[in-house]
């Protein structure tokens, strides 16, 4: 991984919309007076959600003024954490887990599908600019590996075909159903339970 730089094309201005503003004020109010700067991470996330999954420089400036802190401090935080996107990622942001359990279960096939359907390189927008993908570290759903995350939802128990179907759908602007693609409910074992069978509600 290398240093993430802010995108070249930056919007002129940024402002919280009504709902973001309400949420931001709610978070700032949690901190004691004079310590509002503690809210910077939450506010960056709110800005990212409002602005199609990425944070423009204008938003960092806006947040710095909002919390009365130096621009560079907000910039430091935004460049430190990898989950803040500093350049556009499209309406659908696909994160494919390639950490060991997923890798063993064939995460590379998912990456192949992404390369075919979305773009040759990771962190690159698709031709219609609606979508991009990147490899990430463990997303904590090893039990349903391999998996990927699209915006806020997990898509689990995938293989190359199923991934391609999902990607086709999002490229058409549809939102596919999240969850396991082998029919599992949450993290239950396949083919019924094998332990604690004598307990009814376990």
């Amino acid at each position, binding site marked *: *991984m*290398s*240093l*993430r730089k802010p995108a070249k094309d930056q919007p002129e201005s940024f402002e919280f919309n009504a709902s973001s503003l309400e949420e931001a004020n709610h978070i700032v109010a949690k901190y004691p007076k004079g310590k509002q700067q503690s809210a910077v991470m939450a506010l960056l996330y709110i800005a990212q959600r409002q602005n199609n999954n990425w944070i423009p*420089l204008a938003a960092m400036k806006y947040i710095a003024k909002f919390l009365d802190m*130096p*621009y*560079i*401090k907000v*910039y*430091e935080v935004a*460049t*430190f954490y990898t989950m803040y996107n500093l350049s556009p990622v499209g309406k659908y942001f696909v994160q494919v887990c390639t950490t060991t359990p997923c890798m063993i279960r064939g995460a590379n096939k998912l990456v192949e599908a992404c390369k075919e359907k979305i773009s040759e390189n990771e962190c690159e927008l698709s031709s219609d600019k609606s979508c991009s993908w990147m490899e990430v570290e463990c997303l904590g759903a090893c039990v349903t590996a391999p998996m990927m995350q699209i915006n806020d939802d997990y898509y689990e128990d995938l293989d190359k075909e199923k991934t391609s179907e999902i990607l086709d759908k999002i490229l058409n602007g549809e939102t596919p159903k999240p969850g396991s693609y082998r029919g599992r409910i949450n993290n239950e074992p396949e083919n019924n339970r094998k332990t604690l069978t004598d307990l009814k509600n376990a």
Partner: protein
Amino acid sequence: MLKLKVNDIDVEVEEGLTVLQACEKAGVEIPRFCYHEKLSIAGNCRMCLVEMEKSPKPIASCAMPAAEGMNIKTNTSLVEKARKGVMEFLLANHPLDCPVCDQGGECDLQDQSMFYGVDKSRFKENKRAVPEKNMGPLIKTQMTRCIHCTRCVRFATEVAGVPELGAIGRGEDMQITTYLEQSMQSELSANVVDLCPVGALTSKPYVFEARPWELKKTETIDVMDAIGSNIRVDTYDWEVKRVLPIINEDINEEWISDKTRYACDGLLHQRLDTPYIKYNGKFEKASWLEVYKIIKSKLENTSKEKVSGFVGDLTNMETAYIFKEFFDRTVETDNYESRSDNRYINTSKRENYLFNSTINGIEEADLILLLGTNPRYEATILNARIRKSYLNNNTKIVSLNDCGDLTYPYESLDGQTKTIKEIIEDAHILSKEIESAKKPMIIIGESLLRLENSKYLFDNLKDFLNKKNKFSDDWNPLNILSCDAATVGNFDLGVLNNKINLIEDLKSNKFEIVFLIGQDNLNFVKKNEFVIYQGSHGDKGAECADIILPGSAYTEQDGYYTNLEGKIQKAFKASYPPGDAKEDWQIINELAEFMNNRKLFNDKEELYSSMLNYLKLQSEKQTEHNNNNWNSDFNNENLKIEIKDYYFSNVVAKSSKTMIKCNNAKMNLKSTGTEG
């Protein structure tokens, strides 16, 4: 007091100190990169690891508070192994470019790798390469060399008060940069060059100029402002290559302003190197003998009331004193003046023109009131102290005017002198606050003293503070912030005339001979006066002169300067004046000898002792104050702070190319609107 052991030596330290400070007290040197006495503790370089009894791992001594009964070991094999390990990590990504690095020879990393470095690298991968950053015209960056100590970031945030530097990214990709790579908006910015323990931030104007061991080092005094910062002038041959701060806790701590540091290239340009005589509007080279002859005949053929002398802002006290003696004894007139404007000074007592609370006193003050001054530009180092006071004690600061960003928050009033009147008359909220404050400070700038009502304001402010019993043996709340290095020294020597207004007389062309000693700030339209200019640089004064006497700059002659607190300090000769130029006192002495066949002083020693004697006598006797041309009435005025352009405030700075670049960078930032 805490008792602990360092290498079996017993030490006692105050509570709140760190293990590193305790080790220093025991005389044990601890290697460090990120730790700095004047900055907050970061603890991220790990070089200061020491062994502590009962701790399974070595501890970072800079961040560990000293505690009772600690047993610290710094000379064990564990410590050495740990430090070697840290050093190996630091060197893993550090380029091997010491031969082409400006820091070479005075580099902390280089020095410490001599003790803890491993001769072979186990790092087979490619070294990290980091793009250079733009940090303005003074700081050259070579960020590949950076070891992420964050001293520069902490300096900018804490001392300079411009939080523009930061560390972006993380881990191996961490980079130090200014926000969007703009130049740093601080007058203290170049101190990060000294702070940088490696060659990541080096001095741009000094790039590849010299190696530290080739330079002759002279410890002397700065004259760019009235603070009198202690500096070290490094010269190569006769050229001043660079200026560095030296530590004086009472004055500049460890910092100097960018002007102090970088105006020194002005000493190489626009110099007057030989006497000149103006014939038909054109300057022609002349010999000393010729110019002395002309001056002699002119002075002899002019009545003494028609002769006037003006002493400039960078003139040392010896020159001012011998000039005064020359006028008193040879010309026999007291038409001399060191002010370049009409400002009120009550010389009856020395405390009337000094910064009485002292610079150290700022840290004790609990209320600071700025009247007609912008300390950020008039006295940068002093401003840093006010900021320090604000950070440590949350001192309340009030300014009569809104002076923009002073690097600390302050309350600004309306800028009308009637507000001061209200304060004096107990009709303002601040009157109560001054009364209840234990150590209030009122800092009066030269802009206020230039007002028509300045006598009224100054005298009544003093009375007001007297009434409230604010003057005590250890606290004097009334401060005058002088702007120029020579100001206080000249007042001490009595180089001013309160009987007649020489500036007005000069402007109405009443004089026939005008003798300027390094005085370039007089705005007068020359008519038929015969102007003699003695100074180091060809500027406004030399331009209107009929005769030019080439003198020396502050680095080229020994000379005393009194700083705004009244501390007398000696500047030492670091190099030689160019060409035929002479030391200033010598010129006057020779001129006097030429006129009367008798030197004023046999040698410089005699001049010193005579001057110091005069100062002693002056401080003992209270002179009769005569200030008839100042009215004591009051009518409201709008106080406007007039400050000279920071980067061009004197002839040396005006001749400096670096200062021009600084000014351009500032203008550029303003015009693109990316500032603030």
